[in-house]
C-alpha cells in the first residue's frame, strides 16, 4: 500500500477535486447561460436590424453579455460547490478510508495517518452532448443574425410600391412635351426629378401618398399639354386668316382694284408682323427679303409665295407636334380637329373681297371668310354649317312629382301584391269609383281610392282589369 506521510497531501487532494468540480460546473453553466444569451442577442440583433437597420458594429457589443454569462455561471457554480466536509466524505468513501479521512478534518488521527491509503481523485463525468448542441445552435443563430444581409432583415423596405409603369408613362409624356417644346427645359427637368424621386421612394406602407403624388404630376403634365393645344389652336386660327389672304391674293390678284389690293397687302403685312412677333419659328422660315417687305408693307407675288409656304410649314409643324402629344396620350385626339382643320380652298377669296369691298374692310372680309360657316339652322349660316345645340331643354315638370305617402298607405303597399302593370297612369275617377269592368258602378266605401282595401275575392276582377285591351284601359 502506498502510504501518505501527512494530511497536507489529503488537503491538496480535496482542494484539487473541488477545483475540478468547480471548473466543470462553471463550464457547464457557462455554456447554458451563453446559449440563452446568444439566443436573446440574436433575436435582439434581428429585430434591431429589421426595424431600424442597425449596422453590425453596435450589435457586437452584445458580446459583453458572454462575459457576464461566464461570471454568473462562476458565481452559481461556487454556490453549488459542495462543502469541504462533503468533498472529504466523498473522497473517504471512494477510497475506502473507513472514516479516517473524515476524522482527519475534525480530530487528530495520529498513527492512523500512516495507514491511510493514497487518495485517488474520482473521475467527473459530464454528459455534455445536449449542452454543447444547444450552445452550438445558439452561436450559429447569433452569427446568422449578425451576418444576414440587411435587405433580408429589414422590414420597412420590404414592400416597395411598384409604380414603374406609371413612372415610365409619365417620363415618356414629359419627354414628348420637352421635344415638342411645350414646356421649358428647366420645368421638364424639375418634373423628371420629382418623377424619379417618386419611383425610388414609393412605399407600400403608404401607397395613397405615392399615388396622390403621381396623380398630381400627371395633372401637371396634362395641363401643360392642354395649354399647348389651346395655344396651338389659337395660333392656327390667327394664322389661318393670313394664309387665306396670301393664297387668295396669289390666285386672284388681278381681280382686285388697286385700292383693295393695297389694303389687302397692308392687312397681310400687319397680320404677318403680329405673327412673327409671337412665333419665332415662323419668322425664321421667312427669307430676309420677305421679312423686310413685310415690315415695309411692299409685298409682291414672290413674297406672297414665300409667306404662303412659311405658313404652310408652320401649320404642318404644329400639327406634327400635337400629333405626338396625342400619341403620348396627353390630349384627346378629337381636340386636334381645331388645330388640324382641313386646308381651305382660298382661290375664291379675291372674288369675295371684290364683292364686299364696299361693305367691309379687307380684314373683316378675311375674318368672315375664315370663320365657321354658321351656327347651324336654316337662318344661322350656310348649308354646310354644323348644327349647334345651345341650351338643353329643362327637365322641370317632366318628372313625376315626388310625394311622401301617408304611413297607412305605405303599410298597405307593403301588404299588397303586384298582379299587373299598366302601360300608363291608371285613370282614377274623382269620385273614387272605377269606370270600367268589374269595378263598374261600384263606389268606394270611404276615403280615397288609394286607401281602399281590395279584398282577396276582388283579386280576380283587378287582374282582369289589367288584362283588358289597351283601348279600354287608356283614356
Amino acid at each position, binding site marked *: 500500500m502506498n502510504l501518505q506521510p501527512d494530511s497536507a497531501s489529503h488537503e491538496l487532494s480535496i482542494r484539487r477535486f473541488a477545483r475540478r468540480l468547480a471548473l466543470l460546473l462553471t463550464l457547464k453553466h457557462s455554456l447554458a447561460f451563453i446559449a440563452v444569451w446568444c439566443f436573446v442577442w440574436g433575436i435582439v440583433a434581428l429585430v434591431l436590424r429589421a426595424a431600424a437597420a442597425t449596422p453590425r458594429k453596435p450589435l457586437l457589443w452584445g458580446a459583453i453579455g458572454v462575459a457576464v454569462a461566464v461570471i454568473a455561471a462562476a458565481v452559481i457554480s461556487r454556490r453549488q460547490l459542495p462543502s469541504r466536509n462533503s468533498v472529504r*466524505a466523498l473522497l473517504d468513501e471512494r477510497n475506502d478510508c473507513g472514516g479516517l479521512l473524515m*476524522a482527519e478534518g475534525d480530530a487528530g488521527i495520529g498513527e492512523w495517518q500512516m495507514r491511510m491509503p493514497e487518495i485517488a481523485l474520482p473521475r467527473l*463525468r459530464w454528459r455534455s452532448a445536449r449542452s454543447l448542441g444547444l450552445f452550438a445552435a445558439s452561436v450559429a443563430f447569433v452569427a446568422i443574425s449578425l451576418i444576414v444581409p440587411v435587405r433580408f432583415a429589414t422590414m420597412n423596405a420590404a414592400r416597395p410600391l411598384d409604380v414603374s409603369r406609371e413612372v415610365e408613362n409619365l417620363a415618356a409624356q414629359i419627354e414628348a412635351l420637352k421635344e415638342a417644346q411645350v414646356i421649358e427645359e428647366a420645368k421638364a427637368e424639375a418634373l423628371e426629378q420629382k418623377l424619379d424621386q417618386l419611383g425610388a421612394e414609393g412605399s407600400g406602407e403608404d401607397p395613397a401618398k405615392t399615388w396622390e403624388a403621381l396623380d398630381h404630376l400627371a395633372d401637371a403634365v396634362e395641363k401643360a399639354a392642354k395649354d399647348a393645344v389651346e395655344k396651338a389652336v389659337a395660333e392656327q386660327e390667327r394664322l389661318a386668316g393670313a394664309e387665306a389672304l396670301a393664297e387668295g391674293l396669289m390666285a386672284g390678284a388681278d381681280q382686285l382694284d388697286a385700292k383693295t389690293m393695297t389694303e389687302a397687302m397692308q392687312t397681310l403685312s400687319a397680320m404677318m408682323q403680329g405673327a412673327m412677333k409671337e412665333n419665332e419659328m415662323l419668322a425664321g422660315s421667312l427669307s430676309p427679303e420677305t421679312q423686310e417687305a413685310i415690315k415695309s408693307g411692299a409685298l409682291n407675288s414672290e413674297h406672297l409665295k414665300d409667306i404662303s409656304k412659311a405658313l404652310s410649314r408652320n401649320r404642318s409643324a404644329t400639327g406634327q407636334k400635337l400629333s405626338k402629344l396625342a400619341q403620348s396620350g396627353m390630349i384627346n385626339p378629337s381636340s386636334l380637329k381645331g388645330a388640324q382643320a382641313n386646308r381651305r380652298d382660298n382661290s375664291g377669296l379675291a372674288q369675295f373681297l371684290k364683292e364686299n369691298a364696299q361693305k367691309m374692310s379687307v380684314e373683316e372680309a378675311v375674318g368672315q371668310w375664315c370663320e365657321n360657316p354658321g351656327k347651324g339652322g336654316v337662318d344661322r349660316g350656310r348649308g354646310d354649317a354644323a348644327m349647334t345645340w345651345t341650351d338643353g331643354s329643362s327637365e322641370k315638370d317632366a318628372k313625376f312629382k315626388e310625394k311622401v305617402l301617408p304611413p297607412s298607405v305605405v303599410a298597405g303597399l307593403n301588404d299588397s301584391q303586384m298582379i299587373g302593370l299598366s302601360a300608363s297612369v291608371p285613370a282614377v275617377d274623382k269620385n273614387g269609383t272605377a269606370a270600367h269592368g268589374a269595378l263598374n258602378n261600384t263606389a268606394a266605401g270611404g276615403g280615397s281610392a288609394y286607401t281602399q282595401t281590395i279584398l282577396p275575392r276582388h283579386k280576380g276582377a283587378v287582374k282582369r282589369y289589367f288584362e283588358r285591351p289597351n283601348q279600354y284601359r287608356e283614356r
Partner: protein
Amino acid sequence: MTETILQPEELNPAVELANKILNQLDRILLGRSELHRLVLAGILSRGHILLEGLPGVGKTALVKALGDLLHLQFKRVQFTPDLMPGDILGTHILQGTDDGRRAMEFHPGPVFTNLLLADEINRASPKTQSALLEAMQERAVTLLGTTRALPNPFFVLASQNPIELEGTYPLPEAQLDRFLFKLNVTGADVETLDRIISTRRRGEPPASDFVVTADELQRIFTVMDRVFLPKPVSRYISRVVAATHAAADEAIDEVRSYVSYGASPRAAIAMAEAARAYAMLAGRPTVGFEDVKTIAAPVLNHRLVVNYKARFDGVDSHAIISKLLAQLDETGIKLPRDVQIEA
C-alpha cells in the same frame, strides 16, 4: 485539534478480544459468521436483539453460546401463553421473618440477569410481553412502587418463530422499537450442514474454550465508546432515518408508496451505536459509511410499518431499505443531473 481518535495500541486489544469471541462463535455455530458479527455488534452496543427464524436453525444455541462465552449471568425463559409478568419480573411472597412476623419478600424473576433469552417471545400474552418494556428501556423493574435496577450489562435476546402463528401475539410496535436489531436466522447451506453432521454427534456444539470476563467486556465497551463518528456519517445516519418517512424530502418512491410509519429517533441512536460497534469489530477507530450501510437493515427492518399495498405487492421492509440505501447519496452532494462522480 481538540481530541485524538483511538490509537492502534488502544484499539487493538479490544479488537483482538472481540475477534476471539467471534472466532469462538464461529467455531461453536458453523456457517453463521455474518450473523455472529451482527449479534456481537448488538451486544457491544448494549442493545437487545430479536432473532427470527424457523425452528431448529440455531437461534437458541447462538444465545446460549454467547452466554457461555461472555461469562455473564444467563437465564432463559420459555414464553408461553400462560406465562405471567410475575414469572419474568419476580414477585412478592409472604415469608416468615426471624422474629416470627410475616412480611412480603421480593423474589426476583429471571429478568434479573445479564443475558436473558426470551425464547419464542411472541407466544406470551401482550400483558407479559409488556412486562419487559421497562426492563428493556430503563434497565430497571418497578413492582409495587419499588424500582429495582437490573444487573449491568443487561441484554435481552429474544427469538420468535415466523410460522405457526396460531395462538401467538405479535409484538407491538413499541416493544419492537426497543430491540436494537431484528436478525433473520436463515437455514444453513449444504457445506455447513455437511460439516455439522460430520463433526458433531447429535449436533451438540463443542464447549467454549474461551471466556470473556465482565471486566474485559467492560474494557471493550470503553474502547467502543471512543470510536469516532465523523460528522458526515452522523449526518448520513440522520438522513437515512428521516428518509424512512414518506413526508421526508429525500424519501424515495418506495417509501412514499409502501411505508405508513418510518423509523423513530431511537433508530438513529441505535444505528450510530451499532455502526460504532461494527467499525470496532472491523478494527477501525472511525465509523465509515459502509458500517452504517451494513447495520442499517437490521436496525430499520422491524421499525418500518409497511402498509397493505406493500403486502399486496410483496414488498417487505428489507427491499425498501435496500432501495433507500442504494439511492441515497452518502455524502449528500447535490450535483446537476448530467454531472456524475465516477469511481
